[in-house]
Structure formats: structure tokens, C-alpha cells
């Protein structure tokens, strides 16, 4: 246990809950040089205990833990803490990822994941928890690459051009902006835009997302902003990591 620090901004603490020693090693070795402190847990039980004890700033949770279902762990941690949880899972496990996300996890990484991807996810997670925790007023303007959204005036710009969005399109966009940089599941988006009990209307989402891409992306077929997370949901990329 580290001594409480009175310094203004201590390095963020990442708790790695992963049974595979090599993955833990790779994280333990590479994250510190990017400004993170790392603690490790090798099982679900240990992970939950260490979350209580160390109060990390971010938890990296492997869904394939030997002793307990990762989904349960996420749920349990979420029940008493708002710490960002990023789940690690293999390809082909999309339904499990979605379950974890709907149960309270904030984002996911598919193994094998790239290091840059990991760093991006960590940044996004920390930024969201910081803004939630702070007393500052919510940001008025969102910008990412050519996209500018003036939330106060309800105006959207792609580059210099203002773009007209239908009410539904705007609602969808703002749902993504609120979670900018993080994945939002189909269900979460449907609920945000169309209300509860619309979980089955995924095709609405898909079609509207296609419309958004056409209106706001320079090359709709090679989107840089509105990424499709196949089988899981969508992610609005924060290209400049800027939130004014």
C-alpha cells in the first residue's frame, strides 16, 4: 500500500487483473514510462480485494479469469465504485463484452491488443472519470478532428461547413459525444435515442450511423470519427483528445 500523497496530480494508478503472467509483465514494464503506476492481481478475488485496498484510477479486467466470471467482477466493483473498468477479452467473445459493458464496464480491448490502443483507452477512461468527478460545468463544445459540436447552440460543423442533422441524428450524435472516445453499446444508444425497450431495433442504429457518417465524415467508407465496433456498438473517436 502506498502512502497517501499530497502532490497535486499523482501518476494514475492502473490495477491489472489478469491471470496470464506475460500480459501482466508487458503492462507492468511498459505503462510506467507513459506516466502510470501499475499494481497487479492474478485472480478475480485478488482483483476485487485490491480494488478496495488500492483505490485505483483505472481497472484493466480480463474476462477470462479462472476463478470467477469477469462479468460478475465488473458488476460487483461497479456496485460500490465508479472506477473506470476496461475489460480485456478475446475475439469472438462479443456477446460477453457487450454484457460486461452493459453491466457497468466502460470500454474494452480485444486480445491481442496493440499498445497504442491501450494507451488511448486509458486516456479516455481517465478523462471521463476526471470530468465526472470535477465540479466544473460540463463542456460546451466538443471537437474531434474536423467535427465540431456546439452543444449549447445545438449546431454541428464538419470542417468549416455547418451540417443540418435531424432530431434523431442529433440525439444519436450527442449520445456518442457524452461518451466520446469510449465504446457505446447498441443497447445503450438505442435507449438514449429511442427510449427503453427498443433493444431489438439495431437496424435503426445502423442506418442512422450510416447517415451520420455520410454527413460528417470526409470519406464515409473510411471513417475516422465514427468507428463501428463490430458486434458491440460504436465509438466516436477523440482525434485531438481535446474537450474544451
Amino acid at each position, binding site marked *: 500500500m502506498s502512502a497517501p500523497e499530497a502532490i497535486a496530480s499523482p501518476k494514475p494508478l492502473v490495477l491489472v487483473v489478469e491471470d496470464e503472467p506475460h500480459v501482466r509483465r508487458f503492462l507492468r514494464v511498459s505503462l510506467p514510462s507513459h506516466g502510470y503506476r501499475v499494481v497487479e492481481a492474478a485472480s478475480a478475488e485478488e482483483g476485487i480485494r485490491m480494488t478496495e485496498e488500492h483505490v485505483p484510477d483505472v481497472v484493466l479486467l480480463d474476462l477470462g479469469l479462472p476463478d470467477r466470471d469477469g462479468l460478475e467482477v465488473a458488476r460487483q466493483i461497479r456496485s460500490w465504485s465508479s472506477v473506470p473498468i476496461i475489460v480485456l477479452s478475446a475475439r469472438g467473445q462479443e456477446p460477453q463484452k457487450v454484457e460486461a459493458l452493459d453491466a457497468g464496464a466502460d470500454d474494452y480491448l480485444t486480445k491481442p491488443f496493440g499498445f497504442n490502443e491501450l494507451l488511448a483507452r486509458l486516456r479516455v477512461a481517465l478523462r471521463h472519470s476526471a470530468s465526472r468527478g470535477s465540479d466544473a460545468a460540463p463542456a460546451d463544445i466538443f471537437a474531434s478532428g474536423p467535427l465540431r459540436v456546439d452543444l449549447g447552440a445545438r449546431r454541428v460543423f464538419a470542417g468549416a461547413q455547418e451540417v443540418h442533422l435531424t432530431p434523431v441524428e442529433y440525439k444519436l450524435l450527442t449520445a456518442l459525444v457524452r461518451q466520446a472516445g469510449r465504446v457505446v453499446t447498441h443497447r445503450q444508444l438505442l435507449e438514449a435515442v429511442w427510449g427503453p425497450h427498443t433493444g431489438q431495433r439495431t437496424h435503426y442504429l445502423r442506418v442512422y450511423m450510416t447517415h451520420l457518417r455520410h454527413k460528417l465524415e470526409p470519406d464515409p*467508407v473510411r471513417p475516422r470519427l465514427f468507428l463501428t465496433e463490430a458486434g458491440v456498438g460504436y465509438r466516436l473517436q477523440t482525434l485531438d483528445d481535446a474537450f474544451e
Partner: protein
Amino acid sequence: MEYGWAVAILAASTGLCWWTRPLLTLADQAMLYLLGVLIASVRLGRGPSFFAAAGSVAALDFFFVPPFFTFDVAHVRYLVTFGVMLAVGATVSHLMHRIREQAETARLREARTATLYAVSQQFAVQTQVDEIAATAIHHVENLTGAAAAVFVADAGGELRRQGSTETMQPPSEGERAEVRRVFERGEPSDDGGDRIFLPLVGTRGALGVFELTRRGSSGAVIPAAQGQLVRTLVAQTALALERAMLAEQAARADITAEMERTRSALLSAVSHDLRTPLAAITGTAEALLDEHTDLSTAARSELLETIRDEAARLSRLVSNLLDLTRLESGALQVRKETCPLEEIVASSLSRLGTLLEKRDVRVDLPDEMLLVAVDPLLLEQVLVNLLENAVRYSPAESPIELAAGVHGGEVLVSVADRGPGIPIGEEKLVFEKFYRTDDGRRAGGTGLGLAICRAILAAHGGRIEAENRAEGGARFLLTLPLDASGADWAAVREESEEEASS
């Protein structure tokens, strides 16, 4: 009865001669009687026809040789006439009889041959043991009137009754014991009157036993006349059974061999294709760890990139293998949803990431949104596999073209390159598991990508085809059913706007 006919013929001959007496000489009358004898021999048995011959002589003597109405002869020359006539009559009668006998024998032989032929024909098309047994029983029953049963030895040497006449009871202990004995000895036996057991012997030993049970209360189980035929039938049955059993064995061996082939092809592909990138990774890592190697930062980076790229390749290979295994075992669930094709194209392109970075990928999609009912992850995999192939098999500067359109209620998607194309005549072969061209082998493909594509398309009720382009290179065409439910986007849009505002 027949003698009565003989007498009638004699009476007719006599009557005829009497009425034509003024016109005919003795010679003529003798001829008429001989004609009667001929007719009698054609129709009647040996005895009656000989009786007709002798009777003809007596009648001729009595009625037409002086002194009339006596058996005396006036002259010795009449004795010669009688002698010759009797000889001729007897000979004709005898010969006729022989002819009839031979005709009967020939007929029987022909019937026997016809039966054997019919049975052979039936056996020729039958491949199942129970069919063959039924045919044999049917014919033997017809021939002998006995009830028949066929016992066949299975793989474990157990004798099971494979067929029997409908009215037969299940075999008794004693019966089973006798069947076993006959089977082991390979010798026929009978239990003293009611039953006969004939072994069914093939080219490699006994196969079973043919049992015949007399139905009546007396007589031979197998009538003597049918003896040879029945034994021939039993022998044929044995051969047919042997053929059927060997065919079954061969089929099983074929399946086993096929499974073995697939398994070893998979193992060898996996072994080679996993080891190659692993070798690169191991070698590169060791080089980097080696303190004596003097590397510039740039060289270091390059080696590390190798590790990263080879690991990515390994990752794709493992994905392919897992997908293939899942598809083959039926474990893969196809979860169809209405998707805009564009979205799937976008996610495939982004999944390939750096691989496509340096390539000129041209996407041509229609302006109106194409909705397809597909499992988005699976279709994405198809496009990823096709694009990966295009990158691998075409020169770095050549363009890769992806296009889509609607045609006759179906959505057509094509991925085309300007590489060497597909060897002529192998356009269908490319979709087989582990199929690789020589270029492919060199380029490090597994031969699984297209097989997976085909399986996924099939699971969606679509198709995939390969062709060579006129301008050079290969084109892969996917056909997917157009999603009718989403086609009316206007209605969907209205509905969704309503729901959103409520």
C-alpha cells in the same frame, strides 16, 4: 385314361379306313394307322402309344387283311407288313417320347437358368445384406415350398438372423446351436427330416447359414428336381452377401481415410504456417536480445516491426483456423441483422488497418443505401479475407477494387485485384480447404480464407464465385439476398422518427 384315348384313335383310324375301303389299298390303310400312332405318340404316354402301335397292327389284320375279321393271315407277305408296321410304330412312339422328354428337360433347364438369371440380376443391384437375404428367401421358397431363413455373421462373429419367411418363429436354442455348428464346420446338415442347414461360404470362409424348414408333413425339404438349383442359389447368395459386406467395409475405410486425410492436411498446414511466423519472431527476438549484435535505432525498430507484423499474421491464422473449426462443427451461429453494406465495408477496411495503408483501395458503392440481412461479423470476415488475399497476391502499386450493386433482387459485391489471377480451370477449386497456388504457398497463405468465405456465404443463403478479369487479375463475386424488410427505408425512417419523439 390315356389308354382310352389310344383306343379312340384306333377306332378313328379303323373307321376312316373302313369308309374309304373302295379307294385305298392295304398300303394306304397301313399309312393311315401309322398316322394314328404318330398322333398317339405326340399326345400320350409311352405305354398307350405303344399300345396304339400294336393295336394298329391288330386292327389292320382283323379288318383289312384277308381273311377279314380274323387274326389269321392269308399270306406270309402280310406278316412282313405287320412286322414293319409294328417296328415303325414302336420306333415313332419311342422317338416321339424321347423328343418330348428332351423338350421337357430343356424347358426345365431354361426355367432354372431364368431363375438364376433373375436372382443374379437382383443381387447385382442390391447392396444391403437384408435385401439380399430377402431375395434369396423369396426364390428358394418359391422353388421348394419350404420356409427359409438366412443367418449372417456380424463383425463380432455373432450369427444373426437377417431374413426369414414371415410365418417363422424366432429361432430356438437348438436351432441356434445347429446353425452355429454348421457355420463353424462349413458342412450342410439336416436334423432328420424337417430342416436342412446349408452353409453360406464366400471366398474367404463361412459367412452364415441358410436354413430351410419343410412346411408340409412329408416329402423332402428340397424336392429332388430342385436340388441343384437350390444349392446354386445358396452359393450365389453367399457371393452376393460377401460382396455387400466387402462394399460396406470399403465405404467405412473410405470415410476413415478421408477423415485422416483432412486431419493430417490440417495438422501439416497448421504446423507449417504456425512455425514460420514463430520462427521469424523467435529469431528476431533473439537477435535483439543478443548483446553482441550492434544495432542502430532504426534497425532495432525494423526488427521490432517484424515481430509485430509476424505476430499479427499469426493472429489472423489462428482466427482463420478457429473460424473454420467452428463453421465445420456447426458451432457457429449466424445472427442475421439488417445492416447497411457500407458499414460492413468500413469495418473490414479498418480491421485490416496497416495492411491496406500503402495500397490503393478503391471503393465503389451505390448512392442509395444497400441493406443486407447478414451477420455483420461474419460478412466482415469474408471481406477481410478477400481483401487480405488481394493485398497478398497483387503487386504493391496495383489498385484493389471493391464494388457493390443490386441485380435482380440480389446484392452483388466484388473484390478485384490486378495480380496474376487464378490458374485457368481452378476457379472452383480455389474455394477448397487448404488449396493454394504456388504463389500462395510462397506468399504464406493457409489456403483456408476462401473456404471460410464459402462456408459463411452458404450459411447466409448466398454464393461466392471466382473469375479472371479480362484486364488481368482475379475478381471474387459475392451474392447476397437483398434484405426485403429494410428495403423500404422511408417507412423505417418514419417509424423511427416517431418512436424517438414519443
